[in-house]
Structure formats: C-alpha cells, structure tokens
C-alpha cells in the first residue's frame, strides 16, 4: 500500500491580521503506510500544517486531497472521524472511563456494542495496558505516559486512515518517552498505519520518521529520509539544524537499512545477526560484543537478506555532512 493518502498542493495558511503566511505554498505527498515526521522550531508552521490536514485550521489558498478527494468537499465531521488525532496535552475526557474515552468515536459512528467492547480491549492490549485493570479507570487515576497510551488508543479507535500526532510525547519524561517512541514504531510496523508526527526534537524526528519534513518559516526546507537529512542536507538551514548531532547520535537514529548491502556471507551460519529495523548504535554494540567483521541482516521472519560490514558502519562516522560548505 503506497498510494498517496494525503496530497498537499500549494497549501497556504495566513491567519487573520498576520503579515506573513504561517504555511506557505506547501506541496508534498504522504504515502499510505508511511511514518512521516514534521520537524521544526516553534513558529516554523509545523503544527499549523498538521492542523490544516484535519481542518482545525482552514486553508487560505491551495488544496489538500485525502485519497484523491478535496477535503473541503467532504463533510468535516465525517472526514475527521477517518483521522486519528493525538495532541501533546492529551485531552482525555476526565468524566469518562478509559473504555468510554476510547469508545467515543465508534459510538458516534453507531458501531455495534460488542464490536466496540472487543475493539477497546484490542486497543488497550496494543498500547500495553491490561484491559481488565484499566478499562474502568478514570484518566486522573493514570500517569502521564499511561494517559497518552489511552490517547493513542482513542485516536486509533475507529480504524482511521491516517494518524495526526502533534508532539504527543512532548510533555512526557524522557525515559517514558523513549519507551513510547519504540512502542509507536512497533505499532506502526504491525498495523502499517500512515502517521504524520509533529515534533521539535531532531532526535525524535530522525528516529521515528521513515521520512522527515523539515520546516522553517512556513516552508518545507527538505522532505527526505533521515539519512539524506543528515548527510545530504538540502540547504544551509537543514545543515545547521543537523550539524549539532554527533556520530553517536546519528547512529542512534539511523537504521541498518541505511548501510546494509546484499548478503554475500549468508551461507555462514555462525555470523551474528541483527534485525533490519535495529538502529546503528545497536549494530555498533553488536560489533563490539562479537568482534565480527560483518553481521547478517535479518527480516522479521529471521531470514538473512543482507549484511552490514564494519567498514560500512564506519563510513557513516566518516561521512562528511555535505552541507557543511554552506557554513563558510
């Protein structure tokens, strides 16, 4: 599934009374099943861009297509029900239990009662909350991290075609944030849901995104893979943005796929193996632990489909940020 789910065509937003566009002629496609992060500083237009997609803000000019349909021709409430929305402040309904919170949209869509109950339990398990224990709790009885898990489950309740997430982990402590990031990646891998994820944290954007939209001044500076954002920045802005990331930080956000080559030693049963979704920092650890000159790269079924050599890994560290020249 790689059809375009969301297509922006010269999407522009200018707020009433402002002299500048908050979002300026943004044209890009979001492929179905992709995990796209939007990275930018405050005032860059990243949140406005996200809110244009679910029509919390309305376009000043341009158009946005959802599965090929102009979103302004759709009934706004029906359209929004096809979109999961998660915000930093979570916004759970404090007078409803966890189960009632998750059931809001399915109930509004008049789903069958048993279907809703099964769906609630399924989602709670998906976000690692024991349904028997958490179903009848109230939001105030949960920690921030648990609340955002419920927020995530609620957004996925009616099987939306796309998830919009506005700095969902921004207010959560760094240890829990890392766990939630990993779980979100796992959920994305499992369900293949299209995710559009806003963050101001470079590390988070590069770690989560299959592709990253770098925004500044209401414009898209670069829309590319984390590898290309790091090593082939499109302009001086992106170059400056990523320059602060040192080698270890780069290894933490890049994945095996970025440096893997076709398998040449797959017949060797003794070579240590890593999953293709591992970060390069884990690959580095594996090299250090095993002392092997290369590792087999496996897919989820455990089949070796490539390999990564010590030299390939080192090349990442020695790669010059080609954008450095913008500096001088």
């Amino acid at each position: 599934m790689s059809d375009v789910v969301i297509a922006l065509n010269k999407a522009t937003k200018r707020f009433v009374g402002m002299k500048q566009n908050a979002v300026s002629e943004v044209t890009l496609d979001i492929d179905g099943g992709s995990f796209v992060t939007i990275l930018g500083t405050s005032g860059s237009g990243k949140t406005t861009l996200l809110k244009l997609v679910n029509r919390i803000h309305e376009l000043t000019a341009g158009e946005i297509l959802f599965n090929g349909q102009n979103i302004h021709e759709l009934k706004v409430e029906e359209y929004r029900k096809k979109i999961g929305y998660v915000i930093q402040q979570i916004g759970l309904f404090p007078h409803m239990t966890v189960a009632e919170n998750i059931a809001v949209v399915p109930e509004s869509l008049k789903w069958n009662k048993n279907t809703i109950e099964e769906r609630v339990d399924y989602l709670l398990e998906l976000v690692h909350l024991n349904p028997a224990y958490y179903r009848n709790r109230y939001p105030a009885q949960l920690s921030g991290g648990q609340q955002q898990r419920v927020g995530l489950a609620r957004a996925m309740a009616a099987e939306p075609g796309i998830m919009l997430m506005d700095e969902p982990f921004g207010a959560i402590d760094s240890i829990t944030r890392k766990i939630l990031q990993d779980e979100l990646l796992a959920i994305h891998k499992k369900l293949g849901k299209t995710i559009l994820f806003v963050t101001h944290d470079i590390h988070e954007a590069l770690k989560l995104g299959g592709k990253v939209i770098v925004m500044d001044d209401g414009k898209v500076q670069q829309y590319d893979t984390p590898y290309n954002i790091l090593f082939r920045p499109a302009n001086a802005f992106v170059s400056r943005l990523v320059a602060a990331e040192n080698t270890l930080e780069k290894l933490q956000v890049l994945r095996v796929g970025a440096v893997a080559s076709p398998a040449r030693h797959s017949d060797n049963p003794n070579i240590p193996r890593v999953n293709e979704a591992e970060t390069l920092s884990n690959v580095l650890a594996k090299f250090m632990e095993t002392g092997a000159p290369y590792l087999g790269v496996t897919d989820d079924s455990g089949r070796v489909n490539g390999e990564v050599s010590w030299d390939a890994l080192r090349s990442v560290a020695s790669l010059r940020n080609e954008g450095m020249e913008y500096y001088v």
Partner: protein
Amino acid sequence: MYEFFYGIFEYIGSHRETWLEAVRAHFFISVTILFASVVIGVPTGALCAKKPVLSSIVINFFNILKVIPSLALLLLALPVIGIGFWPACFALMVHSIPTILISSYTGMRQVEAAILESAVGMGLSPGEIFWKVELPLAAPFIMTGVRTCAVDVIATTTIASYIGAGGLGELVMFGISFMNLTAVVTGGLTIASLSLAVDAAFGLLQRRLCRIPVE
C-alpha cells in the same frame, strides 16, 4: 424554652390546614422559580460561554438588575404586572437567574481547551460535544449554582406574600401584624427547615450526578 417549642407544635396542630396550605404554596412558588431559572439560565449561560460579545452584555444586564433589592423590585413591578403568583415569580427570578446563569457560564468556560480540541479533532459535532463533553464537565458548577439558588429562592419567596402570592411569608406577616410571636417563629422555622432540607437533597443529588474521581 420547652413551652415555647410546644407552642409552635400546638400552633401548627391547631392551624393544620392553613399551615399545610402555606407550605404547599411556598414550595410551589419556589419550584416554579427554580425550574424557570434553570430553563432560562443554563442555556443562556452556555451560549454566553461561546459568544464573548453576548456574554458581556447579558451578564452586565443581569448584574445591574440584581442590584435592585427583591422587595423593591416586587413593589416596582406591582403597577406593571399586577399582584399574585406570576408577578411574584417574575420579580424573584430576576435574582435567581443570574446565579444559575453565571455558574453555567463559569462551568462551560473552565472546560480545558485541550479537551475541546481533541473532541473537535476526533470529529464530534457541536451537539455531541455539548451533550457528551461540555455539559457533563460543567455539571458540578451548574449544580452548585442550582443548589445555592434553591436555598436563596426558598428564603426570598417569603416576601412574595407581600404581593399576594401566598406562602409561608403570609404566616410571618400575619404574626407581625397581630403581634403573634408564635406565628412569626413558626413561619420562620418552617422556611429554615425547608431550606435545609432542599440543600441536603441537592447535596445528595450533586454527589450522585457529578462523579469525577480526583485520584
């Protein structure tokens, strides 16, 4: 002391019909005022919370009206709307509506922006948001307003008797005119008991309706 209270019971016993009729009338006027105030005050308060321009006009209008003492309003309204049940209700509502209106307004305003944003973002209609989210979250505030108002109304209904609407005020007025202390105290104590009972009843209702756990 004992004899004094005995006197009250004796008074009620010997004027059973009149006393019951006064209690019934008092209660009926109070319920009518309270009901009408809720019907007018809650929607108006909710609407004001949504429209800032409207809210400053409406709230100021009621605040100005509220400055006029109930009794003065009652007597001022007399030449225009006459005497009896409805004029009394109307004049007393001027004081009870603002209490409920402002508590509804406050209740609606304190609903967090993030909660509303997620409700809008998940595709709920304005009607669904009002009934499922805003009203339940404003309910504790509205209920506090209604409870305060109910106690207020029962107390002020006493003066409705001045324009012939009946109620326990008649007993007090009669007592004052005829220097009958037992009648005054009987009326006063009945009103006080009624207020306490209604307050307690609303307290229970509040606990049942507004269950938002804190921990």
